[in-house]
């Protein structure tokens, strides 16, 4: 007897829960042969607003988690992803990758998580400094997370690209709100399921699916977001994001025409992009 297909409902990931969009809307993702792959939540600006609340709430506790613990959590994500490789490969293939490319992308994604897990208790030494000053002070700068980070993911290498952005941001103590690749969102939501079973506290990583055109202005202008990362080549959008971001002096990070396999994209300097320096002047010799 034949069985009916049991298809997954792809939902959003906000504050450790999987709600549908409050707007009730969805959009269809199709493959190159124009067949329906899945219906995906079309998140609204109100979903984004709610997500910022969740991300903000989780931020302080996550930043105060010990470096060792953060590293363990990242490593745990890699372990969980390893166990669900087949699903991710199948989804990448459904989104149009070749079997070989899909396999390669999943493997590299797992390795990248392990890479950043290792950096969790090391980047601090690299970026913090003791500064010579000509007064009676001990002057030092140390790194802190910027806070809540909006990420607009690119349209290529949907899984590797996503991990290459999320991992360095969270290992630095930030919480993130990701708008997944518009054309290839499946792996993003499946990644949310992995995160949810990997000891990542709710609200540290939040994943939305939807249209860039509709959400980018809110992601760039929200006064409670401290940094925005945009992956893409749209010049107008880049300019507009910069303008919106200036209102609360958000850190802006842009990745253009990016190949996520490139070794420049596996570097502690990516962690540094969502860190800020705090300098302390400590009186001495009194």
């Amino acid at each position, binding site marked *: 007897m034949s069985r009916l297909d049991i298809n997954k409902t792809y939902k959003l990931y906000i504050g450790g829960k999987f709600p549908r969009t409050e707007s009730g809307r969805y959009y269809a993702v199709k493959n190159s042969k124009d067949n329906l792959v899945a219906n995906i939540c079309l998140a609204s600006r109100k979903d984004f*607003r709610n997500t910022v609340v969740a991300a903000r709430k989780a931020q302080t506790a996550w930043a105060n988690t010990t470096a060792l613990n953060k590293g363990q959590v990242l490593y745990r994500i890699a372990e969980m992803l390893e166990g669900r490789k087949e699903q991710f490969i199948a989804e990448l293939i459904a989104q149009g990758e070749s079997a070989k490319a899909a396999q390669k992308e999943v493997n590299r994604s797992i390795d990248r998580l392990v890479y950043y897990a290792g950096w969790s208790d090391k980047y601090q030494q690299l970026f913090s400094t003791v500064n010579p000053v000509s007064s009676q002070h001990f002057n030092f700068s140390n790194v802190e997370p910027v806070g809540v980070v909006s990420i607009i993911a690119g349209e290529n290498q949907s899984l590797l690209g996503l991990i290459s952005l999320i991992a360095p941001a969270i290992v630095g103590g930030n919480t993130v709100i990701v708008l997944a690749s518009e054309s290839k969102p499946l792996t993003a939501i499946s990644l949310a399921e992995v995160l949810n079973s990997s000891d990542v506290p709710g609200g540290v990583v939040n994943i939305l699916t939807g249209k860039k055109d509709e959400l980018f202005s809110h992601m760039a*202008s*929200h*006064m*409670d977001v401290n940094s925005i990362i945009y992956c893409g080549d749209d010049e107008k959008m880049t300019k507009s994001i910069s303008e919106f971001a200036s209102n*609360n002096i958000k850190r802006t990070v842009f990745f253009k025409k990016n190949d996520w396999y490139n070794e420049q994209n596996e570097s502690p300097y990516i962690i540094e992009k969502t860190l800020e320096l705090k300098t302390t002047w400590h009186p001495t010799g009194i």
Partner: protein
Amino acid sequence: MLPNLNNLPVYDTTGVDERIARFCSRSIKSSSKKEGLKLAISMIDLTTLEGKDTRGKVQQLCYKAMHPHDLLRDIPKVAAICVYPSFVSIAKKALEGSGIHVASVATAFPSGQSALEVKLLDTKSAADQGADEIDMVISRGEFLAGNYQYVFDEIATIKEACGKAHLKVILETGELDTLDNVRKASEIAMYAGADFIKTSTGKVQPAATLQVTYVMLDAIKDFFIKTGKMIGMKPAGGISTSKIALQYLVMLNEVLGEKWMNKNFFRFGASSLLNDILMQLVKAETGMYQSSNYFSKD
């Protein structure tokens, strides 16, 4: 005189929930939303009721009450400041000439577990220092024991001690268990001379809910029909977002009507609601979602 409490309407929670679900589904957008939010600000009893309150905090709160936001235009002042009796004279001085009332909790707030003489002294002292409004608590223990006459007499005695000050009677609905009890306590308070009935102290969970507020509004309506006297309503505790505030206003309008839609007959007892409304109004003005970092905390 204590009213007959045997023929009161009985509340079915499912029915109340359904009615409330309808209030919550009203769509209030753009300009009507702005007007609603400004109305809500004008109805706030900006409250601080903590053991750690200081002169400085109360003075700062008074400043905030008079100038909720320095850049937004046409923002009304809040209706009143609500403090412990020890801060009445400080608040009174800080608010001089602003028209903002000073409300003081009294009668051994929040538990009400003291002798009547102590409660009377508490009330008189607050009123003598210039409190315009007194927020008293009822004796929930006596009420739950069925000693309605005691509760009625106590409220009536406190009302006398208030002098010119308006009396708000806190039912502490979170401790009354059923909606029928809320209705009963509302009747007792109104007939005993309350100017306002108020849901909660804010110290007991659940505090104000749409359900109990609905029942109390319903009681106010019936009281008005019977006696022609308009009683005010004050939900307090846990109302911290603009969205919920608007839902309360919708309910107020649909149950009691426009005559009640002003600060003389409706108040929100709240501390963080004001900032949330201001954030919404700035969002409406600028199109950008706001962060509480850019709004004064007290």
